């Protein structure tokens, strides 16, 4: 039982990121409404960010802001222990990824508005019908 719990704790994040990603991907492929697809896209991207953040976590670590750093430069007596701080690199990468995803989201929304102006609908099957009419 304890082993099983340990396994769940160890892998739960990875499993659930995969489930989230599957939800997002499914919405992107199977949904009919363009805005629903965009929501799927965003879920898909956040799932990947969740994966990266999970990589960086350390059970015993604290947030990656060094405590007694400024003020006195001579305080190097307390050597910084790497194991005490959570890995900052994935966070940096994911800041970039979040911003990229919101940029894509904004452009996609603008496109949706533009498509709606032209066709008065955002449903994919209706759009396809409109296109084949012409």
């Amino acid at each position, binding site marked *: 039982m304890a082993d099983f719990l340990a396994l769940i704790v160890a892998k739960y994040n990875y499993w659930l990121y995969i489930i989230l990603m599957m939800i997002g991907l499914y919405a992107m492929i199977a949904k009919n409404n363009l805005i629903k*697809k965009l929501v799927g896209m965003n879920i898909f991207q956040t799932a990947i960010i969740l994966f990266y953040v999970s990589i960086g976590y350390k059970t015993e670590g604290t947030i990656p802001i060094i405590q007694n750093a400024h003020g006195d430069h001579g305080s190097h007596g307390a050597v910084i222990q790497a194991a005490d701080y959570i890995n900052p*690199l994935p966070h940096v990468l994911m800041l970039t990824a979040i911003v990229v995803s919101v940029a894509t989201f904004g452009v996609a929304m603008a*496109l949706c508005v533009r498509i709606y102006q032209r066709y008065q609908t955002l449903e994919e099957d209706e759009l396809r019908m409109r296109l084949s009419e012409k």
Partner: protein
Amino acid sequence: MDNYPALIVIAPLLGAFFAGLAAWIEKRLSYPIALAALGLSLFSAVNVLMQVIASGTIQYRMAGWAPPMGIEYRIDLLNAMVLVLVSGIAFLNLIASYKSVIQETTDRAESFYVIYLLFCVGLLGVVATGDLFNLYVLIEITSLTSYTLIALGDRDRGPLAALNYIFIGVIGASFYLLGVGYLYIKTGSLNMMDVANILSGIQGSTTVLVAFFLCIIGVWIKMALFPLHVWLPNGYTYAPVAFSRVVAPLMTKVMVYVMIRLMISVFGYDYIFTELNLGQAVVWLGTIAVLAGSIMALSQKNLKKMLTYIIVAEIGYMVGGAWLANELGMTGAILHIVNDALMTFALFLAVGNIAYKIKSTDLANLKGLFGRMPWTMAGFVLAAFSIIGVPPTCGFFSKWYLVLGAFEAGAYHFAAALIFSSLICAVLFFKVFEICFFESRSNGHGDAHGHGDSHSTVIVEEAPISMLVVSGLVSISLIVAGLYSGTIVNTIILPFLR
């Protein structure tokens, strides 16, 4: 000056913002600024290529930090060659697009130049960088700019094609990002060299396997390998001409470059071909892509769309060649990056000239074009010969290497597909020539008297001189590149592969 590697990317980036700001002072300032920025970029790229040929790989540390900590530009022979190619084509296209941008985007030409420059920044950065995550950010810049520019094209279909491209493009880029994440969890590093060093000590890991597949599938989606190509034909067809002229030759080729870079510099030959033994399967994929692309091209009624399907077939050439697992195949694939970029550029330049004058690229509207636009069509014929693979042009040489490589690897199906696709291209282009040459324009058929002198009254209506000059220059470069392909192979590709 040793800042040339950075300047290649920084010059157009700075140029983009200066062009954007200058547009608020005087609208006409944007174009010369853009031109100067890309010119500087081309100049630096040529300089870097000279340096690399003379003294070997250049490493440039961004912000001065040593590689695994900071981001580094690592420019070897392959990079340097593709950089010159990309900046050259971007520069020439900007010269050619002055008139057509004004025609197509009317009051928004300045913004077009800004986005165009950012697109070039993305492509150049993708080629120059030596960092896996930096590659992702730059891929996103190229993608975001292409979404925008595609949506600006055709009023009805453009936005839909762009939105479709966003969905598929985001899946591709996210797969790549996820692959990088798996690599990172196993190696703890993002620098390509460093990752490759650590990976060589890891054997039989499922994580690396997953990382490999995610990265490669992501890149395949971005380069539109056959079953994943659905976004490409619509996207490139409905884009504005000035943009499709640069995105069609460069985007997919740069992605092929990324694939080759990942194969050679990150995962390594041994891992792919010995441990996973994937060569055969992917060569089959390439074969299918070549066949499917050529056959779908046959059924198109629009010249631009037909050419986009030919691009799909050409991607099959390069993917197949790169995965033949021998030196000849890889040489062919790399040489084909250069040649195909030039050929596609020449073809789309001709299409751009036609679209500028005729305002349509439907095959039915192209009748009598040889009489109306002789110079444009001369360039088109030359480019078509090159795609088919007629000897003095450059297309022949890369196909030659690819076929030799296929025979050496025993992949006869791939060789057969190459030859079959050349035949189909020949049929295809002669069909176009027939329409453009033999059938005169429909108004000639109307009156019975004018039958005799309908040929003598053909008016020559050529595209503007700037477009013609670029078109002619590129068409001639096809032959020049063909004649010098031995030099390219011996001074750049073979030293790189060994």
